[in-house]
């Protein structure tokens, strides 16, 4: 054991670490993770990408290779453009609103309120509900005779009643509201964690400088929770761009295509219409979009973290 360790550390360890005895953990530790991830995600996804260049229908024994034809078709598809627009709208609005509300809740609950522990649990609870539960529940709430219209009537606002999920101008906003409702607790918990990492001394110092509440927030709190902002925005943008379950269970992308996202488009093409190759092409494009957005976002956010 002793020799092996010496041998291994002789080669590659960079010299900037002054400690003479510290050794890096063995690569062996990573083997189970690499194997499982490599097979379940990497191998399977790469094998799946192949179909994006075929016209396979999902059933027949042969998958005719068609080169980039699926991508050309995708570029001209009106439905793809509509789905992309809906996807971007959902990801953008849900991310912004969910994180703003999550931050406000975190600020409110990062305090000595007597009810803070109970409230933290209440706001996090919806994160744990299965998509089908959320969909059922909100179909009930949004129904023409449902809770929302009932409450509007109860306060004398009958003329504000809407076909919430059935009208092309309100459907997507109704869906976004549900997504925000379900995941605002997730953002809150991450912000709360970030806030708990801000040392009290910094606030005390700011108080001595005579900073008001807003200045304290802007100059002390915000820079220090920058890592939490990065984690939150990255995860919610990725989840928003890939959103499927909530949309499919609530509206199946309707009315018409008013709430169809790229994932819904992919699902229908690959599994319901027998255009498996085309569906995988959509999956590949979705991957590229999410990667690019996530990388740009990380770059911007990380640079802000450094400034802060």
């Amino acid at each position, binding site marked *: *054991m002793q020799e092996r360790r010496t041998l291994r550390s002789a080669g590659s360890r960079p010299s900037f670490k002054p400690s003479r005895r510290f050794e890096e953990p063995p690569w*062996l530790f990573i083997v*189970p993770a690499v194997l499982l991830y490599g097979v379940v995600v990497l191998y399977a996804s790469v094998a799946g990408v192949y179909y994006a260049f075929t016209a396979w229908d*999902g*059933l*027949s*024994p042969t998958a005719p290779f068609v080169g980039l034809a699926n991508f050309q078709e995708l570029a001209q598809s009106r439905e793809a453009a509509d789905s992309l627009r809906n996807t971007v709208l959902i990801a953008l609005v849900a991310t912004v609103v969910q994180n703003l509300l999550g931050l406000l809740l975190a600020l409110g609950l990062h305090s000595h309120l007597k009810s803070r522990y109970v409230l933290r649990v209440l706001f996090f609870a919806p994160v744990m509900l299965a998509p089908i539960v959320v969909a059922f529940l909100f*179909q009930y709430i*949004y*129904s*023409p*005779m449902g809770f929302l219209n009932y409450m509007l009537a109860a306060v004398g606002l009958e003329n504000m009643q*809407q*076909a*919430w*999920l*059935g*009208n*092309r101008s309100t459907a997507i906003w109704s869906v976004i509201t549900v997504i925000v409702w379900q995941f605002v607790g997730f953002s809150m918990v991450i912000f709360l964690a970030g806030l708990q990492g801000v040392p009290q001394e910094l606030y005390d110092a700011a108080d001595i400088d005579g900073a008001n509440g807003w200045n304290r927030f802007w100059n002390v709190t915000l820079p220090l929770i920058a890592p939490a902002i990065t984690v939150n925005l990255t995860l919610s943008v990725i989840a928003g761009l890939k959103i499927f379950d909530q949309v*499919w269970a609530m*509206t*199946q*992308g*309707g*009315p*018409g*295509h*008013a709430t169809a996202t790229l994932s819904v488009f992919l*699902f*229908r093409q690959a*599994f*319901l*219409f*027998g255009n498996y190759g085309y569906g995988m092409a959509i999956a590949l494009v979705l991957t590229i979009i999410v990667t690019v957005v996530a990388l740009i976002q990380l770059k911007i956010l990380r640079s802000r973290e450094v400034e802060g």
Partner: protein
Amino acid sequence: MKSSLLKAIGFLLVLLIVGTAVAQERVTLRLAAIVNDQEPVTAVVAEYMRRNPHITITTTFAPIDQYQVVLRTQLAAGTAPDILFVWAGAAGNPMSVGLLAENNLLADLSNEPWVRDIPAGVRSSVQHGGRTFIYPVNKLVIGLFYNRQILQNHGLGVPRTWNDLLAACERLSRAGITPLAQANQVLWVTQLIPHAITASTVYATDPDFDIRLAQGRATFAGSAGYRDALQRYLELNRRGCFNRFPNATSYEDIVRMMATGRAAMAVQTPGFAAQATRQGMAAEHLGMVPFPVHNDGTRPWIFASVLSSFGVSAASRNQAAARDFIRFLAQPEILSIYLGGRIPAVPHPALTVSPLFSEMLAAIREGRSAPVGVFWPNPRVQDVYMRGIQQLFDGSKTIDQLLAELDRIARER
């Protein structure tokens, strides 16, 4: 040190293996179906296992969309269940007999004894290339359900003509009752009324419309019957026949509206009756008639098509047992368990149909029925139709635009 790592990995492996062993069980036959048919399938399977104690059948049920995803994946990987629920028709559904047989995924059942009993009108729905691949259990019909009591209370008879229907709409809506409960938020429900109308306005005179459509010899835009059906659909909406916001109304909503007497009628399929009575509607108040289309006394055609059908996977290693199960299912006494009073696809004198469906049955017997849309050329046509109807209702599409789009999609493979 090193051994403790091995121990840890060994422990996890043991956990995995134990988990595997716990789960494994001797399985003879596997059967998969849509969840809508869970109750009758479970009953039939239980009866089969009671009479054949040496055979075990395990069942899977899933909602239609998930069923289609899972079954297509399993078929592609060669792991499909021995007995599977298959849709009738050529290529209009991702799990239709035409598509599966075309890819040699179903066993040829042409030599089974029940094949000769299949009526001529049903044969094309269960065959591909002249060979029979599935056993059809029941006929799905679309008709007008009504609450007898509500109609009587408002001095109305059962609507027999289009004008009757419009008159009933007017009187009922003035009395604050929804004349027709309509759940257009649910895609499959959107097509029920136009299917009920086009059965008379298109298929009564042109039964091969779908076939000619697939061959490129007919178009939606060129069909006066389709245009008329969609115009009438919107007319019903304009005249206040439907509940408020049909596009936002779910199936559960209309079941509840019907069960609580807030709606008087609904255009639906037989399953609706069971759901409404489960919710507390008195069965004796419920009636069903063909959707009234004409004003001149001509009797309407109805939509009727094979729904629940079962085939045997070509990859099944239990062909004989799977075929035996289907032969078992095809016996009248077993079929009657499955049907529970619904209309059989293969008629038999020993099968009794619920009086609720007697007028629908009469239409089928007299040859006034058509499997509207079952032979559309690809699954996207139906999708465009259903979503297009939602768009007609929210004003984002015109009838002409929808018909043109349907023709464009029908031409694609």
